[in-house]
């Protein structure tokens, strides 16, 4: 195998979360602590008059405001233009002039991170200049129960997260916090959950055991979400798996909230990640980088976990 070229793509962190979940506050503290280095910040607000940028400007190395439309729908073109401008600027700079390759997008509270992911993937320029580093979703512990009960968007945000940060945890009793955490774990079992108070990290105390909220189905006939872990046997090669998964995502993409795992291929272990129908370009991991090879987690609804196994098994038999 040839040596991997230096990856000079922009690393984009998408910061999501429902309206008022504390995204700006959290980001300000992260920037103050230097968590993202000299990252360029993109702030998107659904409202025409931006406010957040003034709060962040003092802490950010550079900042672009995208006002007047949510970046996942009406403001999508603004986001694409802003990211393309960033790429363009970087390509004109020498290696020493270039600052951080980190970009943080603070989405509006109305954005579905998966839709943004899709927009970037479908853009001919950005697809090879931008790499999604992480989707961080903030969840307001105080209002999570209400939002998850009634808002489809709030659930979609939680489901697409790589990492969740619970905010305002000091304002809720332990029992509520435990129930919120149990609910989040049910919605998105693979994402780690952290907590923060006024933007500062907060260690989650010992909590009583709690049942997740019984969330009503919002869309018609929506079944609860569940994780299925599939160990890929030696008899299943990448060709079989990729054909099978692409068909599955096409037919069931709206039900499959997340597919994640590492698959061993002749080229090396591939990190596979999909959010609904959108599959991120699989990344080749250095050999031995992970102990959990050939294990794929499917998180979704509307199917039996065993059917996934049976179906894959059917196609692996030659």
């Amino acid at each position, binding site marked *: 195998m040839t040596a991997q070229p230096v990856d000079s793509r922009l690393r984009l962190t998408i910061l999501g979360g429902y309206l008022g979940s504390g995204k700006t506050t959290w980001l300000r503290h992260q920037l103050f602590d230097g968590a993202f280095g000299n990252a360029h910040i993109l702030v998107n607000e659904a409202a025409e008059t931006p406010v957040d940028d003034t709060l962040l400007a003092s802490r950010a190395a550079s900042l672009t405001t995208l006002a007047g439309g949510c970046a996942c729908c009406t403001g999508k073109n603004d986001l694409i233009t802003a990211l393309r401008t960033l790429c363009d600027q970087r390509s004109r700079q020498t290696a020493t002039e270039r600052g951080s390759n980190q970009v943080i997008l603070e989405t509006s509270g109305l954005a579905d991170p998966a839709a943004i992911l899709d927009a970037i993937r479908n853009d001919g320029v950005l697809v090879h200049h931008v790499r999604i580093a992480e989707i961080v979703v903030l969840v307001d512990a105080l209002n999570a129960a209400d939002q998850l009960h009634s808002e489809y968007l709030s659930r979609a945000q939680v489901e697409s997260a790589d990492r969740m940060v619970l905010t305002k945890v000091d304002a809720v009793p332990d029992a509520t916090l435990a129930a919120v955490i149990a609910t989040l774990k049910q919605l998105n079992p693979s994402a780690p959950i952290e907590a923060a108070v006024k933007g500062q990290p907060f260690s989650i105390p010992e909590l009583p055991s709690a049942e997740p909220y019984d969330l009503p189905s919002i869309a018609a006939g929506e079944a609860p979400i569940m994780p299925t872990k599939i160990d890929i046997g030696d008899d299943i090669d990448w*060709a079989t798996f990729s054909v099978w998964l692409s068909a599955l995502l096409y*037919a069931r993409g709206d039900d499959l909230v997340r597919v994640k795992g590492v698959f061993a291929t002749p080229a090396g272990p591939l990190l596979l990640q999909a959010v609904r129908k959108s599959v991120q370009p699989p990344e080749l991991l250095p050999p031995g980088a992970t102990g959990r090879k050939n294990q794929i987690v499917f998180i979704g609804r509307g199917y039996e976990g065993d059917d996934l196994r*049976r179906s894959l098994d059917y196609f692996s038999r030659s």
Partner: protein
Amino acid sequence: MCNACGFPTRPGHWTDAGADNTGDRLRLQLRRAQILNKLLSGYGFNARTPGHGPGFALSSFSGRTTLVPDLEALWEESARQLGHPIDPLDPRFTSSAPSAQ
């Protein structure tokens, strides 16, 4: 790598990952067509590699052949002709018991 911009060429369809030399790519292409036909044959379709590049030639039982650039386009085209997507979780594929893993 693109000579003009210095960036890797546009990544192909995600299913093309996992093969980084010509031999592996060819093997992947042929093996993929084999698996594809297992899925497609029950619906009266047939897929083969067109021979001159990436993608597939999708033929239906009526003899109509469509060239598609990648797997996603193939599922889209077959769904368009069938009126519904081909679902790997259809009972015809899931009725047999899984072998011990």
